[in-house]
């Protein structure tokens, strides 16, 4: 128990310590620190569940390993991405904010108190907002402001639900509230409903999602990867913990269904590739929300499998988007042509990541979606299932049609921006295949 608590503390400490080391020893310290965090998060798997200062069970661990891994990849990518670029903020400020951003996500995941979870989520907004203006454009400044105002106003709304939880239960301890089991009361129902709109702002639930495409599209690639891959899932984790207090399944299920429909429609007419991937994130987060809402082994396993696979796949998509932008300086889908010949490595990662985020087999996202569908079927939610299936197919066609146009239509003379950035894109896109295969092997063994 003590060892597990120490590991949980270490996870919070390493990002900041690696930044301190960076000030003296350079960028390699950030990469070493990121790798160390993945190793510590991996070790936590073997420890017991915690319910003291920290609340950590298997679900928390999945999110912790996700944050640690994507942070490691993003920091490594950032060290190359910003090389020779004129930044809107100083480079060391960027890495400081990146470290604080990561620590605040770990804090939100690990802390055993709903009030402090809220504080952690708000801290992610504060620490990440200035990361958006790293590329110093007028649009990134506007996107930063929209992100700050919309998310803060929304998350403030969520604080109302924290007050109501404390009023009803007299405690904010996550472990004692969850171990007590679900409790139904009008005030708790109100708290869980308000949390859906409040924390839902950060998760990307329609109609409070409007900051999401702006922030994702205007931030630098490693920041977009962190936002899409781990920030939204962290907010989803907090929302899920609140949901467990009084599960309002129909409300959360239909909020997810409507959001998936909206995301697919918006996705269909996007002209910029990063905005397209942002809406794809919204779609995936809401599908995971549905998995958590229906619960059961299929729902929860499906949601976790979808989230962890999506985090790597979407990080891969944004790393590749960063490489393409670095090589071409263009943001519009219609302006990018013939990548297959000019940038073969980035093309491979773009193809793999776009297939992964749209739930194609054998990527882990496919199996996650499959389990959520199975959960919906077993609970006789046929109508929501039909709507979700229709809009997922629409999104699949929209994303892959656009990506195939970028890859195979016409010709171009771009060149890969070095070796590390395309490699990280391929690595991130390939991990969901591995997750999918591991799941199949484990699943077949349990039969």
């Amino acid at each position, binding site marked *: 128990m003590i060892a597990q608590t120490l590991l949980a503390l270490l996870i919070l400490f390493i990002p900041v310590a690696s930044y301190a080391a960076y000030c003296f020893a350079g960028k390699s310290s950030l990469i070493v620190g990121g790798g160390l965090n993945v190793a510590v998060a991996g070790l936590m798997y073997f420890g017991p569940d915690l319910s003291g200062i920290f609340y950590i069970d298997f679900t928390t661990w999945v999110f912790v390993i996700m944050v640690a891994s994507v942070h490691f990849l993003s920091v490594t990518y950032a060290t190359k991405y910003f090389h020779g670029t004129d930044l809107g903020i100083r480079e060391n400020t960027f890495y400081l904010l990146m470290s604080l951003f990561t620590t605040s996500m770990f804090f939100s995941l690990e802390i055993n108190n709903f009030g402090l979870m809220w*504080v952690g989520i708000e801290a992610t907004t*504060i620490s990440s907002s200035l990361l958006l203006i790293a590329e110093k454009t007028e649009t990134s400044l506007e996107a930063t*402001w929209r992100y700050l105002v919309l998310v*803060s*106003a929304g998350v*403030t709304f969520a604080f109302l639900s924290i*007050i*109501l939880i404390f009023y009803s239960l007299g405690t904010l301890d996550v472990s004692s509230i969850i171990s007590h089991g679900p409790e139904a009361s009008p005030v708790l129902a109100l708290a869980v409903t308000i949390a859906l709109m409040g924390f839902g702002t950060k998760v990307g639930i329609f109609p409070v999602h409007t900051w999401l495409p702006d922030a994702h599209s205007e931030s630098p690639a490693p920041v977009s990867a962190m936002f899409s891959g781990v920030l939204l899932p962290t907010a989803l984790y907090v929302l899920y913990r609140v949901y467990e207090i009084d599960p309002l399944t129909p409300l959360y299920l239909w909020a997810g269904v409507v959001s998936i429909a909206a995301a697919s429609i918006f996705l269909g007419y996007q002209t910029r590739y990063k905005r397209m991937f942002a809406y794809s994130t919204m779609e995936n987060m809401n599908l995971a929300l549905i998995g958590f809402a229906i619960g059961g082994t299929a729902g929860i396993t499906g949601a976790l499998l979808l989230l962890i696979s999506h985090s790597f796949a979407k990080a891969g998509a944004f790393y590749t988007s960063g490489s393409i932008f670095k090589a071409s300086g263009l943001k519009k889908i219609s302006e990018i042509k013939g990548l297959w010949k000019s940038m073969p490595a980035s093309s491979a990662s773009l193809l793999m990541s776009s297939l992964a985020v749209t739930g194609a087999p054998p990527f882990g996202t496919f199996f996650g979606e499959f389990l959520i569908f199975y959960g919906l079927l077993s609970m006789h939610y046929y109508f929501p299932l039909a709507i979700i299936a229709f809009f997922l197919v629409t999104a699949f066609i929209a994303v892959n049609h656009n990506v195939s146009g970028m890859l195979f239509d016409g010709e171009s003379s771009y060149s890969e921006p070095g070796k590390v950035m395309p490699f990280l894109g391929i690595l991130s896109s390939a991990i969901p295949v591995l997750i999918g295969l591991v799941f199949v092997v484990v699943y077949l063994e349990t039969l």
Partner: protein
Amino acid sequence: MNALIEVLIYPISSFILISAFYLQAQEFVRSMVIGQMIQSALLGFLSFVIGFAESDYDFFILGVLIVVLRAFLVTYMLERRVPREKIHLHEKKVDVAFTFLVNLILVVTAVFLIYFLIFRSIHLVPDIGSSTIFIFPLTLFFQGLFLIASRKTTFAQIIGYVEEENALVLFAMFLLPIPLIIEASVFLDVLALVVVSSIVVIEKFAHEKMEDLVG
């Protein structure tokens, strides 16, 4: 006790609401910053009064936190960023009288609907009064949201956000104050957010639609 409540708590809460309407009616940045300071100071004073009525020292600490962090530090941060050029001193392209009218209609409708549908049945901490007192934080909350939505300057939107946070503090005071450690963390979070926002203020005073961010 009841006399104290009637004499102080309701009137102070009313003054907090008046300050919110004052903010909504302002188009000059400096007046809005001062309005926010007065609102936060009134909130701090209210915390002292409730602390006295309830004999609860936590309210006194809360009052000190509100006065120091919100009424003083937030105001100081914003005041430092108020532009010296007169052209930037006020909100342009916003018909304040019209938005004030729309605000009144929307806020009053929303507050009464939500109060009668939801909050009427919630019981308060003894001695504070009847559940009608929830009308104050609810109105303040919607005022804050409307201020963010109806204005284009960064300053007005930050103040709208602070007002929204003030509403939650007021709500928690009337219902059941949450543990001080959490309340203090929330105050520090808000302060940090204002600091970050004040950095954006330097680069971008007002906000308009941008083609790249449509869709």
